[in-house]
């Protein structure tokens, strides 16, 4: 699916707006818990998920909310899971760090940095052995690129030609550590060259670019060419997490907002005549309605019984 037609373009904008609104609603709640948010980075998840099919599987890091919503998971049940409600996808037992809905093509998040990468290679191996349709995509940040897990998994994926797309959402900061002080390669996609894995770096603030590059990478993998690596350079509006201190200046943060991927894409759709003011308002209302349902559902849902502490262990 590319963003070259009207419907999918509007879908992409709608999804980015939904993610923004969802996270803002979440962050305003007193019971929001420990969250990693994606404001500013929405284009990466949405561009990627725009090219994934129903029988593909997506694995992510702990920054899972945007990818989960982009993948099409019911936002009401996502919110329930984030708030620990029993009606959540994981019965409230996983939370954001481990959100999963494998039947919806979201194999799951895992909160250990880099911890889901070799898992994704294993899922891809299973797909390959079963000669099943569908590829596997693993989304991780620049923070995972110094970990052996990435390099070991690239190696195995390359040797076995696994149907695996490595997507690095390089928001250029790992908590408070800028990419340049932690990672030697200037382009993280260069990491894939060592293993002969085709790779590209794109502007992660441009959902159209992300979708186009992801689409090309995915096409190659579906054709049996083996793994690929896509680096999306993005910027996050907020700090690393809801408990992490912000390290950037107010001036930097203001200038960041002017590069908002949602505003940018909205403007490009307007310029292309695909969206007008009325259309934009309709989208906003739609999202408002969705969020009202989400909040109602989450608030009406209950926490799990304490006895659930011992279920699903073995």
């Amino acid at each position, binding site marked *: 699916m590319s963003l070259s037609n009207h419907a999918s373009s509007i879908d992409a904008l709608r999804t980015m707006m939904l993610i923004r609104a969802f996270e803002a609603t979440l962050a305003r709640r007193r019971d929001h818990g420990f969250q990693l948010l994606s404001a500013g980075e929405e284009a990466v998840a949405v561009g990627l998920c725009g090219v994934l099919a129903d029988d593909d*599987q997506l694995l992510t890091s702990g920054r899972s909310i945007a990818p989960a919503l982009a993948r099409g998971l019911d936002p009401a049940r996502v919110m329930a899971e984030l708030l620990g409600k029993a009606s*959540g*996808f*994981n*019965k*409230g*037992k*996983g939370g954001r760090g*481990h959100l*999963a*809905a*494998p*039947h919806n093509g979201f*194999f*799951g998040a*895992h909160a*250990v940095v880099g*911890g*889901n*990468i*070799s*898992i*994704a*290679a*294993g*899922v*891809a*191996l*299973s*797909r390959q*052995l*079963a000669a099943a349709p569908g590829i596997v995509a693993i989304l991780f940040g620049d923070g995972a690129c110094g970990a*052996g*897990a990435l390099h*070991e*998994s690239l*190696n*195995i994926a390359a*040797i076995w030609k696994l149907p695996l797309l490595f997507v690095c959402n390089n928001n250029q900061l790992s908590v408070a550590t800028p990419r340049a002080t932690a990672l030697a390669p200037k382009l993280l996609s260069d990491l894939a060259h060592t293993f002969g894995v085709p790779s590209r770096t794109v502007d992660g603030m441009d959902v159209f670019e992300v979708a186009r590059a992801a689409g090309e990478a995915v096409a190659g993998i579906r054709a049996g060419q083996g793994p690929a690596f896509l680096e999306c350079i993005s910027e996050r509006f907020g700090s690393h997490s809801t408990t992490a201190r912000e390290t950037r200046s107010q001036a930097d943060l203001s200038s960041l907002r002017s590069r908002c991927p949602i505003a940018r894409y909205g403007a490009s759709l307007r310029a292309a005549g695909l969206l007008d003011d009325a259309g934009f308002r309709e989208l906003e209302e739609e999202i408002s309605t969705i969020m009202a349902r989400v909040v109602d559902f989450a608030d009406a849902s209950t926490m799990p019984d304490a006895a659930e502490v011992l*279920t*699903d*262990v*073995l």
Partner: protein
Amino acid sequence: MFSEMPKENDATVKMYFREAIIRALREEMRDDLNIVLLGQDIGAFGGSYREFDGLYAEFGPQRVRDMPVAEAAMVGVGVGAAAAGHRSVVSITYMDFLMLGFDPLINYAAKLRYKTGGQLNAPVVVKTTAGARGQGVAHSQCLEAWLMSVPGLKVVAPSTPADAYGLLKAALRETGPVVYVDHKRLFPIPGDVPIGEEITPIGHAATRRVGVDLTITTHSFMTRVALEAAELLAAENISAEVIDLRSLAPLDMDTVTASVRRTGVLLTLEEGQMTCGVGAEVATRVRERLGRAGGALRIARLGALPAPVSSNPVLEAACLPDAHRVAAAARALLAGSVTEVLADTSTTHLWSTS
């Protein structure tokens, strides 16, 4: 469960430990086409102990896969494949290197069912070989005690070819992760394995020797050392009961407790460290279960001295329990000269008798 289940058909065939492993894998892999093996040098080479001999020829490179030396990725790939529908056996040649795979094993596999609220599970068997035999400080460790406390993880340790076969088959039918720990020094010792298909249930210990004066609980290679010590003690008219735990998580405390209730004396034996060891857990649980009703229980733990296990034969031998030390500990315990042995170097009196 007080002893092994009586078998209807006692027909057995004697085979090497590695042959029992191969037999279990071959049977299960023929039956379940979704089982894959991952390891180093397990394909045409057949494994460092020849414990995978013939499987590559039968099942081919798709299902018997050589991997580079990258234990973290090996375990992660095995776990991920298992979660996605391909039950995996990940062979970690030396238990010392299992640590490299702890993140996918413990942070992901053991927690997968729980963290996904039951949506996913990882039926993976991590098979690894523990134990010291002249190979040095980083190729000798017995670390199974570290894994016993991980919720979501099962740990088994066969001491005979029959259980190498039976426990591996059982592990391959579990729905969650199992660590299967064998031992270098078990490979040269053949044993009788049932001719018919037989599964050793997980969570059941085996009484290897019936006795009345004291209970020795142990596992893996130390089972043989315990039996040797029991022979030494028998010559002095001391009757030792030897219980081979076989399953470390879950532990079969019914069998152990019943034995200690009868003997009143417990000596736990392991090759690994005593601190937070298998014996520490067994002893504590026996106390919890028997409490005051157990009367004056006498309990001691025996294991390696708190030092790395050197390849130096003098130092390796000094570090690890042998039959004479086990017998000396048993005598001391029965004489009442120790009530509870602490795992520090002040207990050198246990080493003075040879």
